[in-house]
């Protein structure tokens, strides 16, 4: 038994020791990863820069925590206010806007609150609150959650006072979509996660297109003055690549089920 266990151990150790290129740890949001775009970009980064990017897929809140504690070399998130606080506290020297996608309001195809007829995002949410239709909120301090909260406040409503039709699940985009699908509830999701989601059930996109639903992704390398061990030079090389032409081509050309998801808008 010992010999057998040892054999399996050695096999496991060997398989774990295969990586050779320099690795860079980046905390990214679930919405970025669930879109499938990372599967396109990572092999290209490996080829062009010889950097093995290790993705930590978390919510924006946790991504910022990882950057603050120096456990990631850079972060790629979408919550401008939180990013600016991050820079103000000295954890990054700058933020580089890379690309954007958009949020969509999803709900049961029968649309009990009639949000499809709304003309703005805040009007759509007001209709949901007025009819007390079940609404699933991420509730995890993620970028999507923050975007949702800012639309509620624009509508002059405070989720803290909502009844039990407002369900804060405290989970990632996929888990929250699973919950919404199970309850035929309304939910705000990023378009990429939605298109890629495999368990749509009776849900459909009911409202989209308001500029308020614009979702900007930015890259923030962790400040080496704060955390001397971070791989700052690799992070800068990656930033230049992300802002560059070959990345733009990949991002703009990325299609999922025939739909374009992201628009590259980095300035050089």
């Amino acid at each position, binding site marked *: 038994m010992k010999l057998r266990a040892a054999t399996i151990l050695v096999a496991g150790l060997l398989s774990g020791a295969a990586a050779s290129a320099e690795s860079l740890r980046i905390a990214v949001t679930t919405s970025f990863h669930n879109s499938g775009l990372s599967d396109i970009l990572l092999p290209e980064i490996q080829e062009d820069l010889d950097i093995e990017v*290790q993705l930590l897929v978390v919510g924006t809140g946790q991504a910022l925590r990882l950057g*603050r504690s*120096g456990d990631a070399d850079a972060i790629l998130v979408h919550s401008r206010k939180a990013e600016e606080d991050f820079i103000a506290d000295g954890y990054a020297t700058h933020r580089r806007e890379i690309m954007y996608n958009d949020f969509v309001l999803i709900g049961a195809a029968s649309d009990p609150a009639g949000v499809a007829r709304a003309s703005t995002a805040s009007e759509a949410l007001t209709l949901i609150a007025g009819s007390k239709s079940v609404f699933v909120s991420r509730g995890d301090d993620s970028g999507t959650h923050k975007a949702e909260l800012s639309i509620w406040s624009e509508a002059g409503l405070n989720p803290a006072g909502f009844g039990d039709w407002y369900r804060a699940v405290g989970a990632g985009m996929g888990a929250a979509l699973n919950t919404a699908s199970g309850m035929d509830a309304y939910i705000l999701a990023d378009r990429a996660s939605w298109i890629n989601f495999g368990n749509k059930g009776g849900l459909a996109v009911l409202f989209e297109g308001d500029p308020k639903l614009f979702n900007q992704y930015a890259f923030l390398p962790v400040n080496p003055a704060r955390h001397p061990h971070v791989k700052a030079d690799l992070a800068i090389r990656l930033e230049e690549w992300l802002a560059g032409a070959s990345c733009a081509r990949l991002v703009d050309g990325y299609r999922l089920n025939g739909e374009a998801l992201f628009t590259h808008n980095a300035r050089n």
Partner: protein
Amino acid sequence: MNELFSGFLEAGRLIISLDGDLAEITLRSLHVTLTAVAIASAIGLPAGGWLAVTRFRWRRHVIAVVNALMGLPPVVVGLIVYILFSRAGPFGVLGLLFTPTAMIVAQIIIVTPLVISISHQAIRELWAEYHDLLISMNASKRQRIATLIYDGRRALLTASLAGFGRAIGEVGAIMIVGGNIDHATRVLTTAIALETSKGNFSLALGLGFILIGLAVAVNVAIHNLLRTERASLW
């Protein structure tokens, strides 16, 4: 129901096509869990033996605490190990967060109380049987524990296997300290959680059936080895 069936199909497809990613995460699952169980057994079996043969003032309380720690919530263990290994934490300089080593540490903490508790139960009964013999032979405490562990090895294997069972299916702690990084710290359980969050239930179920199969295979393999041992030695 349909999804359960397509989960079975997916499991079959993954195994037959010898999927490279599947082999990688399966081996990593085994690597992390077997290493953790081996270390936890190296600590837990002697500790269980020591608890059985030693009398001291707070013994009953220590045993009660160890028994309670069997129910240690993995997600809390994960969070504590995370904070300790974070760059901002006391062991941050080691740079171990989000590596298989951190996952092994978390699993050792989860599994060790289980191994101590079960081995203590097993050795206590054996000790009642061997007590007079070992005392009359004037065996030292170390010799007593070694004898009890050797003669109780079959029951003690149950302690290690229970530890293996708890660790191989564990997701809360290793998700936090490992980060579920593709090609670095992704294992079967965290891959299942990821695919579930993407709504890919059939792939998630397929991986789940493979995980269950793996646990059964390891247990069957060890029990078969044990039977040959009994034929020659017992």
